[in-house]
């Protein structure tokens, strides 16, 4: 028997200046199924969802709900049709309770007075029924990310949404929380909800979805039954070629200590507590050390202190034997520290500068680029940037003169990597170097990091992606609540074990 579709998006085409974001895409979501939507960054997933929520009007195509053609002109229409979404970045009021957030906008009331008891009863019933453990009276700012996500799910259920969309829901979760989420999704589907699961993580799709639709560069590639497919097949559909997910690398040959951190403590900008507490670590020449952890556990502040963006309260940082605890950023750079920053738009680039000006951002003062009178040697800057663009395959519209803002995220990141690696650093600090990049660019960047290691450089990397954490480094340090809570050999550990440490459930005494 043919199952009726809960929602159908038929032959959707949406164009933007210079790009067809969605080219004749068809997505059919059956009732009660978990349907994965797979694609790289820029494949058109977000556009398609924006069309479904009425944020964009497609040039062509129709949307059907239960077989009836519907017109969705704004998010309210989508709500009325029972479509709900858990966004990647939660839309919650931090200082409100869970219950307040759930009823926000649809508060049950009589003559303007809230009837919270009624709402609480419904929320508790729902959370019982779907196995969502929440405390309705806890404030959002006090609860874990996992519970915040369950609050978002309850928001949809409270509104009696039938079609639930999860946009990259696992990006912020620990492995344990991911497993819980998968179970919740299965419960929801069993109760007849239809779920659209947007992701680029193949293992999760294989674990939870019934079917999977794949987009690539705005085009619809196909829909497959998960039971009949495999991870290599899905990845080939997603990127259009076979991708080697495993990073090829030889055994590391760690040499002398390059970076040594002793009892470092760094203040937090948001809390009264310190963000980094008494951290000690060492990075040797010829090895990649990765700091793993859930976002916001002090990794950012640790890197800020190492690179000089933020002062340390106490402790000692030594680079190749020199004390740099209080050295200026310029001094650290000149001594051989390179930094691929976490936020390439905030720190990594001057977006309104040309590519060539960005490529010399850390070297413009050298005699090669500035003469004795303080005038820039623009010919040398041009020649140098052309060399880097060629060598690192940075693609842009107008070569060295391209304004950095107009470049794609992947090429912006390549430009930063070119700049940071070409200074031939002793120590390369790479913070989430592959964030937001597609599979091809990730592969490239991982190769560059390994090449640096093989050239005898020390590499300290910070990552939130478990795949990356397991694959790239020679040594893993897990950070939780400002402390290093565990040290692992990636060959001898599992994602589950790391997850326990990341969540703070386990803790070792780690000596640097």
């Amino acid at each position: 028997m043919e199952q009726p579709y809960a929602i159908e998006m038929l032959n959707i085409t949406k164009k933007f200046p210079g790009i067809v974001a969605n080219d004749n895409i068809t997505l059919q979501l059956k009732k009660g199924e978990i349907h994965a939507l797979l694609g790289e960054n820029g494949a058109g997933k977000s556009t398609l969802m924006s069309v479904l929520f009425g944020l964009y009007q497609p040039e062509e195509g129709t949307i059907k709900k239960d077989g009836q053609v519907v017109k969705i002109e704004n998010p309210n229409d989508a709500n009325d049709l029972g479509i709900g979404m858990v966004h990647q970045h939660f839309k919650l009021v931090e200082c409100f309770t869970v219950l307040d957030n759930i009823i926000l906008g649809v508060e049950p009331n009589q003559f303007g007075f809230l009837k919270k008891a009624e709402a609480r009863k419904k929320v508790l019933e729902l959370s019982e029924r779907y196995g969502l453990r929440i405390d309705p009276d806890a404030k959002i700012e006090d609860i874990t990310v996992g519970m915040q996500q369950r609050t978002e799910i309850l928001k949809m259920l409270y509104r009696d949404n039938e079609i639930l969309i999860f946009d990259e829901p696992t990006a912020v979760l620990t492995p344990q929380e991911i497993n819980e989420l998968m179970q919740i999704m299965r419960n929801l589907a069993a109760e007849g909800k239809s779920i659209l699961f947007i992701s680029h993580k193949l293992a999760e799709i294989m674990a939870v979805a019934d079917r999977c639709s794949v987009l690539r560069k705005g085009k619809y590639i196909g829909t497959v039954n998960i039971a009949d497919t495999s991870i290599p097949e899905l990845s080939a559909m997603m990127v259009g070629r076979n991708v080697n997910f495993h990073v090829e690398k030889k055994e590391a040959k760690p040499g002398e200590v390059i970076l040594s951190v002793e009892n470092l403590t760094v203040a937090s900008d948001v809390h009264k507590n310190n963000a980094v507490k008494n951290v000690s670590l060492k990075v040797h020449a010829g090895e990649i050390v990765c700091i793993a952890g859930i976002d916001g556990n002090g990794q950012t502040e640790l890197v800020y202190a190492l690179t000089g963006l933020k002062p340390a309260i106490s402790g000692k940082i030594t680079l190749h034997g020199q004390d740099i605890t209080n050295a200026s950023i310029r001094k650290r750079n000149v001594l051989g520290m390179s930094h691929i920053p976490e936020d390439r738009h905030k720190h990594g680039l001057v977006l309104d500068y040309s590519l060539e000006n960005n490529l010399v951002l850390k070297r413009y003062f050298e005699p090669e680029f500035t003469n004795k009178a303080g005038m820039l040697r623009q010919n040398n800057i041009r020649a140098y940037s052309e060399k880097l663009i060629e060598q690192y395959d940075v693609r842009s519209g107008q070569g060295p003169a391209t304004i950095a803002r107009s470049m794609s995220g992947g090429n912006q990141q390549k430009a930063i990597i070119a700049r940071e690696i070409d200074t031939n650093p002793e120590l390369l600090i790479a913070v989430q170097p592959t964030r937001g990049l597609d599979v091809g660019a990730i592969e490239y960047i991982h190769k560059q990091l390994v090449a640096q290691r093989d050239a005898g450089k020390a590499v300290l990397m910070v990552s939130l992606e478990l795949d990356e954490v397991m694959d790239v480094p020679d040594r893993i340090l897990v950070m939780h609540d400002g402390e290093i809570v565990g040290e692992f050999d990636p060959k001898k550990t599992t994602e589950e074990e790391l997850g326990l440490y990341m969540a703070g459930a386990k803790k070792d005494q780690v000596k640097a």
Partner: protein
Amino acid sequence: MKKNLLKNNIVQSLLTSLICIILGMIVGFIVLLFINPAGAAEAIISIAKNFFCYNSTNMQLKYLGNTLAKTAPLLMCSLSVLFSYKVGLFNIGVAGQYVVGACACLYAALAWHLSWLPCMLLAILAGAVFGAISGALKAYFNVNEVISGIMLNWIGLYGTNMILSNVKEAASPYTYQLSAAGEQAILPTLGLGALFNNNQYVGLALPLSIICAIAIWVILEKTRFGYELKATGYNKNAAKYSGMAEKRNMILTLIIGGALAGLGGSLLYQTGYEQWQCTHSSLPAMGFNGIAAAFLGGLSPIGTIFASFFIQHITAGGTYVDKTMYCSQISDLISAIIVYLCGFVGFFKYAINTHIAKREARKGGNE
């Protein structure tokens, strides 16, 4: 082809500035129509004509000279605004820096009888000190430069009134005439005055201000210092990340900005064109007009040369409006409206770019 031309930055700047000027004239005209329809056309024409209102060539030259004499200080003020703006700072304190510059040079000339160069240097120093205060507050205490600038403007104004009261005429609120009491401090005319029907107010100021404009352009576009400053202005965090001394640069920028404005004060008051009125209770418009000139000039040092001349031209033209038909404030009102709309350059640039993007989108959609 036309599309490519519109995308060109220089063409865009010129076009948007022209649109602003025309729009300002039209709005000014409409306001005049509301007040008194009979004289509106004539009034707006006299504003646009400025010195051409005179019939004889000699008189025209003389009054062109007057406009140029006031263009030089305006150009300095607009350079001050522009330079700070490139570093991401909005130097609204330019008015106060200009005033303390005037104060320093007048006092040095009338009380100490110093010659023109030391007077000018003192004016530069006074403006720089005011700029430094704003800069240091911004860099070390994160005090917004707009707030501290506005406060310093008033401190500068009343401080100047107080100090210059020591060198004012007994019977009037004006300072002594420079030609009578401080002739040694009058800027050399370099024979330029002869070109403008012996207008003694035209001299060193004009070429000096143009040289400053060119120097600012060179600093911003060609030097390491300019590279750092612009990087700081575009993205303070990236500047810090790459090891630039962003705090020092911020202070230095406002010091230079203040020095430029202070020099502006000297370039007007050391010609003897005006005496300082010690009962001023509002800041001279010069500094604020500098903001408009910087934007009208497309934030290019060379563009501001022409923009400053235009704004001074309009401001001076305002005085030729027929006062029997309009009240005496009308000249200031109309030139203020025009100057105000001159600030809308950025808005029109944005409009043009969105228009281009839309047109290309439609084209892309059809292909």
